C-alpha cells in the first residue's frame, strides 16, 4: 500500500523502518544514499520545508583525495548541477589597520584536495534531497520534509526510535542523527552538551549579489574558476577569528567566524564585525559601489579539535556531521561538509556490515572504528593539537609569546627576509596549521604583526554601506509559529542571559527589534536590567543555547526562518 498508518498505541506497534535518517544535509543525504545502495529501507525526516531551507555554511565543499567517500562519488553530477564555482585560488590576508600582507595559500588548499567547490546550501541540499528521495523510494522509504524530530524513543531505557512533532513515534534498527550543530538527538542521548562557549565558533554570512561576468572581471578569474580569500588581523576588535570571501556563480559569500567565548568576552556584535570586514578598504576592489545583500545568515560551528566525538553512538543511534562535532576548523583550513559526507557514508556501511548482528550497538562500534581507520577522526581531532594545546593555550605562555611578538625583537623576527619565506611556508603546512594554538596570538597578534611589518598599505575608498540589522532581519523569510516560541528564557537576569544580547547575531544592545533585548525595569524603587526574548527574528543558530540560560528547541517542522541562499 501507500504509506502505512498506525493509529494504535504500543499494542499495535509503531511504524517501523530499517533505518531513519534525521536531517537531509550532506551528512544525512550521504547516509541515506549509501543505506539505499545497501538495500536498506530508509526514511529521511527533514524539518525544513525543503532540504537546505534551514542550512547555512561558509560555502566551500571539499573532495579529499584521502577520503573514502566524496560527495560526487555518492551523487554523480553534483558539481555540474549545484557547484557554484570550483575554487582554484586561495589567499590569506593579514591586516593591520590599512596595511595588508597577503599570502598565497593555494598549495595548502590543494593539499589532499581532489576538488573544491563554492556552494550555496539551499540549492545544493534541495538537489540532494531530490536524489535521496529517488534512491530511498526504491528501497521502500523516502524523504519527508516539514517533520521535526524532537527526541528519542526508548524502550526499557534503550533507544529504539524517534519521536516527532508531526508524526507518531517511529522505530528503526538504525537511527542516524544528522540533525546539525544543534542536534537535539545528540543531547537527548547524552553524547553532546550545550555548555562551553570555547568549544564553538559562530559564523555570520552575507550573500551578496554580483553578476557572474563582473565577478570574473573583479577577481581576475575565468568562467570556470573561483577564488577564496581569508582575512585575519586587527579589524575585528581583538575578537579571535577571521573572515572569508568566496566567489559563487553570480553571488559572493562573505562572512566572519569567531570563537564564541571570545565574542562573549569582548561583548562584540557579530553583525558589526561582519560590517568591519565588508567596509575594509581591502574589499573595495571587489565590492565596488553597488552593494546588494541578498541574505544575512548565521550558524554555530563545533570545534572538532575539542568536541568531535570519539565514539559517536549510543545503542542504535549514530551521530553524523555537525551533530557529532565533525567540523574541522584549524586556522585557514575550514572543512565540514566533506567530513559529514564521509561520516554519513561510513555509518551506512557500518550498518550494512553488522546488519545481522543481534547486538544493537555493533553498527555504532563499527562506525567508530571506520572513522578512525579511514583517518577521518585523525583529521578532525589531531593528536598533535591535543599535545601542543596543553602548553600553548596556557595564559602565561600566550602572554610571553605575545610579548615577544610585540617587542622590537619579535617584529624583527617576523620582518627579516628569512622569516618572510618561512611564514609563507608555515601557513602552507597542514602540519603546522594543525598545531596553531587557539589563542589571540594565532588569530590577531601574529597576523597583525605580519601585516604591520610586511604589509603594504591599501588606499582604496570602500563605499559599501551594509544594511542595518533591522533591514537584514526584515529581508529574511519567516513562518512564525505564533504562540509557540521554540526558545524559552529560564533566567531573565542580565547576569545569566545578558551575553545573548550581543552574541546573538540578530540582537544588539539598544536594538528593540532583535531576539534578545536588555531592558531596565523599575520595580518598587529598585532598578534592574532584565533580558527579554522574542523568538520571531531567530535564525536558529543556537548561540543563545550556549551563552544564555534557555530551554532551546528547534521550531516545529516547516516553521521558523527559511533561508533562500544558505
Amino acid at each position, binding site marked *: *500500500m*501507500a*504509506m*502505512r*498508518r498506525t493509529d494504535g498505541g504500543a499494542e499495535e506497534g509503531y511504524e517501523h523502518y530499517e533505518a531513519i535518517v534525521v536531517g537531509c544535509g550532506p551528512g544525512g543525504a550521504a547516509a541515506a544514499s549509501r543505506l539505499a545502495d545497501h538495500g536498506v*529501507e530508509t526514511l529521511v525526516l527533514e524539518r525544513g520545508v525543503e532540504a537546505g531551507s534551514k542550512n547555512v555554511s561558509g560555502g566551500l565543499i571539499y573532495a579529499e583525495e584521502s577520503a573514502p567517500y566524496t560527495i560526487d562519488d555518492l551523487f554523480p553530477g553534483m558539481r555540474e548541477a549545484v557547484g557554484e564555482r570550483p575554487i582554484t585560488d586561495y589567499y590569506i590576508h593579514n591586516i593591520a589597520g590599512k596595511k595588508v600582507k597577503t599570502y598565497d595559500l593555494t598549495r595548502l588548499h590543494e593539499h589532499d584536495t581532489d576538488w573544491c567547490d563554492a556552494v550555496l546550501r539551499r540549492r545544493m541540499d534541495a538537489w540532494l534531497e531530490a536524489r535521496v*528521495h529517488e534512491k530511498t*523510494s*526504491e*528501497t*521502500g*522509504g*523516502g524523504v*519527508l520534509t516539514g517533520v521535526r524530530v524532537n527526541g528519542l524513543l526508548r524502550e526499557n531505557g534503550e533507544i529504539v526510535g524517534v519521536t516527532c512533532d*508531526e*508524526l507518531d513515534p517511529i522505530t528503526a534498527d538504525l537511527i542516524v542523527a544528522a540533525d546539525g550543530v544543534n542536534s537535539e538527538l545528540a543531547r537527548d542521548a547524552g553524547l553532546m552538551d550545550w555548555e562551553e562557549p570555547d568549544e564553538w565558533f559562530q559564523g555570520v554570512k552575507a550573500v551578496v549579489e554580483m553578476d557572474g561576468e563582473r565577478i570574473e572581471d573583479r577577481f581576475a578569474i575565468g568562467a570556470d574558476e573561483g577564488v577564496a580569500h581569508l582575512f585575519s588581523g586587527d579589524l575585528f576588535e581583538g575578537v579571535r577569528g577571521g573572515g572569508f570571501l568566496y566567489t559563487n556563480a553570480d553571488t559572493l559569500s562573505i562572512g566572519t567566524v569567531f570563537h564564541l567565548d571570545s565574542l562573549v568576552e569582548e561583548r562584540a556584535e557579530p553583525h558589526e564585525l561582519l560590517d568591519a570586514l565588508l567596509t575594509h578598504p581591502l574589499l573595495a576592489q571587489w565590492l565596488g559601489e553597488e552593494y546588494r545583500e541578498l541574505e544575512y545568515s548565521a550558524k554555530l560551528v563545533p570545534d572538532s579539535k575539542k568536541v568531535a566525538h570519539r565514539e559517536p553512538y549510543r545503542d542504535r543511534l549514530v551521530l553524523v556531521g555537525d551533530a557529532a562535532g565533525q567540523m574541522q576548523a584549524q586556522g585557514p583550513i575550514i572543512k565540514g561538509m566533506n567530513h559529514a559526507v564521509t561520516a554519513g557514508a561510513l555509518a551506512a556501511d557500518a550498518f550494512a556490515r553488522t546488519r545481522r548482528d543481534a547486538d544493537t550497538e555493533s553498527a555504532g562500534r563499527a562506525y567508530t572504528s571506520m572513522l578512525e581507520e579511514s583517518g577521518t577522526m585523525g583529521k578532525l581531532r589531531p593528536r598533535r593539537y591535543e599535545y601542543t594545546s596543553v602548553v600553548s593555550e596556557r595564559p602565561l605562555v600566550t602572554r610571553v609569546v605575545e610579548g615577544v611578538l610585540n617587542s622590537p625583537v619579535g617584529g624583527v623576527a617576523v620582518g627579516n627576509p628569512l622569516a618572510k619565506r618561512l611564514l609563507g611556508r608555515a601557513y602552507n603546512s597542514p602540519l603546522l596549521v594543525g598545531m596553531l594554538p587557539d589563542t589571540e596570538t594565532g588569530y590577531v597578534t601574529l597576523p597583525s604583526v605580519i601585516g604591520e611589518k610586511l604589509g603594504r598599505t591599501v588606499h582604496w575608498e570602500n563605499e559599501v554601506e551594509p544594511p542595518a540589522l*533591522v*533591514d537584514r*532581519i*526584515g*529581508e529574511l523569510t*519567516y513562518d*512564525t509559529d*505564533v*504562540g509557540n516560541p521554540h526558545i524559552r528564557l529560564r533566567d*531573565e537576569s542580565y547576569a545569566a542571559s545578558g551575553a545573548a544580547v550581543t552574541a546573538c547575531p540578530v540582537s544588539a544592545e539598544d536594538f*528593540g*527589534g532583535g531576539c534578545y*533585548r536588555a*531592558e*531596565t*525595569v*523599575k*520595580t518598587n524603587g529598585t532598578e534592574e536590567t*532584565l*533580558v*527579554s*526574548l*522574542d523568538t*520571531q527574528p531567530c535564525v536558529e543558530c543556537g548561540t543563545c543555547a550556549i551563552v544564555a540560560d534557555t530551554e532551546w528547541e528547534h521550531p516545529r517542522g516547516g516553521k521558523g526562518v527559511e533561508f533562500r541562499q544558505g
Partner: protein
Amino acid sequence: MGLDPEEFTVDELTDELETVDDADELSAVLEAERAGQNRKTAREAIHRRLEAVDAFDDAGSDGADEASEEAETEGEYEETREEVGEAAEGEAEEAAEEDAADAEGGPREPSEAAQEEDGLSHPTADKRHVRALSGGDYRDMWVFCEVQQGELLEVSKEMLGKARELMDQYAADYEEEHVVAFLMGDDCEGLAEECIAYGADVAVYHDDDRLERFLHKPYSEIAAHMARGQGTVESTDWRAYDEPRYVLFPATNNGRDLSAQVQAELDSGLASDCSDLYIEATEISNPVKTGEPGVKKTFERVLHMKRPDFSGFEYSTILCLDNPDRDFHPQGCSVIPGSFEPMDPDPDREGLVVEHDMELEEEWFAVEVTEHDELEAGVDLTGHEVVVCLGRGIGDDPTLGVELGLELVDAFDDAALGITRGIVTSSYQFEGHVEEYTKEERQIGETGQIVAPPLYIAAGVSGAIQHKVGMDESETIVAINTDTDARIRDFSDYFIEGDLFEVLPRLTEALEAGELDVTAVADGGED
C-alpha cells in the same frame, strides 16, 4: 470459493493451503484474506504456496504477478492511494467498511472461536441490523446543516455550496436529483429558507424548544427518522426513496458526534474529516464487493471522499460501496470546515421547505445542559476610526506610556489601542490596571492583527517590516518618535519628532479642547 481464510489461524491455513494446487484459487484466497483480516503472515503463507504452485504450473503466473505488484506498491509510500491504483482502492474501501463496523459498536461477526475463548456472553453477537437493506432505492444528496445560537454555521453553507456544485454536475452526467438540507433547533423555519438561498432544493427542519442545544440522542433519532422518510404523509410525500444516496455532515464537534451515530442507524459507513469530494464511476476487483474473485465490477455514481491522512502528508480516498447482498448507503462523510466555498446566497431561489413531523420521546432528553459558557472572542482592533499603537518607546516608564495611550484612545469617538510585538515579548513590569492592554491579543503586525483604519497613530514604534505589514494599508499614518532615523518615518504621512511622553498628552489635550480636527488630519488636511 473453496477455502475461506477467515476460518483458520495462520498455521492451520498454511496446512490447508498445501491441499490447493490451483493458482487461481490461491489468488482468490489471497484476495479474501486481504479483504478480511489481512494478516501479513497469512499473506506470506499464500504467496509461498503460490510460488510453489507456480514452479509446476505456468498457468498460475497471473497470481504471482499480482503478488510481486503488491510488494512493489508497499514501498512507494509517497504515492497517494488513488495513484497506486486498484489495490489501493480496495483498501480505501475497506477503510469505509471498518468505519461502518466501528460505528455499529463492534465487529459485525465475531468469530466463534473468539467467543469461546474470551468467556464472555456477547449479548449483541446475534444482533442483525433490522433495517439493513439490499437493493434499496437511494436518491439525493443530504446535507446536515448545523445551527448554533440561531444561526447556520459557516460550514453548513460551505457544504451546501459544494453539494450544489456536485449535484449540478450529477444532473449533467446522469439525471436530476436534489440537494436536501436537514436541520433542527428551536426555531429554524427561517434558517431552512436560508438553506434554500444557499443552494438546497429541499430543506427539512424540525422545531422543538428542547432542541435549542445539540443533544446526541434526540438529534440522531430525528436525523435518522428524516433520512428514512418516516413521518406523516404530508411531510414525506415529496420523496419516494428508501434513504439518501449521499449524506454530508460538518466535521465539527457536534457534527462528528452525530455523523457516526446516524450513519450507523442507517446501516452504512462514514468517512470522517474529508476535505474534497467528487462523484464518478469506479472499477473494483475485490471479491467482497464484486461477489466473485477475478471479476471486475464497475460501481456507478460513487462519492469519492478524500481525507488528509498521516497528519496531512498524504490523502486517502474513501469509497463506500455496496456488497452483493448488503447495501452500504447512504455514502456519507463529515467535511472539514473551510474546505469549500459557499455560493453567493440567492434569496429568490425556489425550493421546498418541509417541517418534519415526529414525536420526541421524553427519555431522549435525560441529558440536561445545566450550565454553559461562551469563550471570549478576544480583542478585535479592526473596524475602528482610529488605532493608537504603542511601541518600545514607552520603555522608560511602560505603565505611564500605556496610560497616556489609553487617554488618547478615550479622547477619540471610536478608537482602539494596539501594541507592537516588542511590547508583548518585553520584560516590562506593567502595573495591574494597564496589564490587560499589553497582551498578544492587541498585537499589530505579521504575527498579530492586520488593521487599516482611516487614522493610525504609532507612538514609539520603530517600524520593523513585521510591524509594517500589519498597518501599512492605513489611510493616514502619524508617527511619534524621538529617532528621526526610525524606519517608520519611511511610510508615515506625518512624522512628529518628539518624546511620546510629551506628545501624547498634548494630542489628548488638543482633541478634548476641540482644537484638533481629526477628520482633517485623516483626509490629509491643510494643517
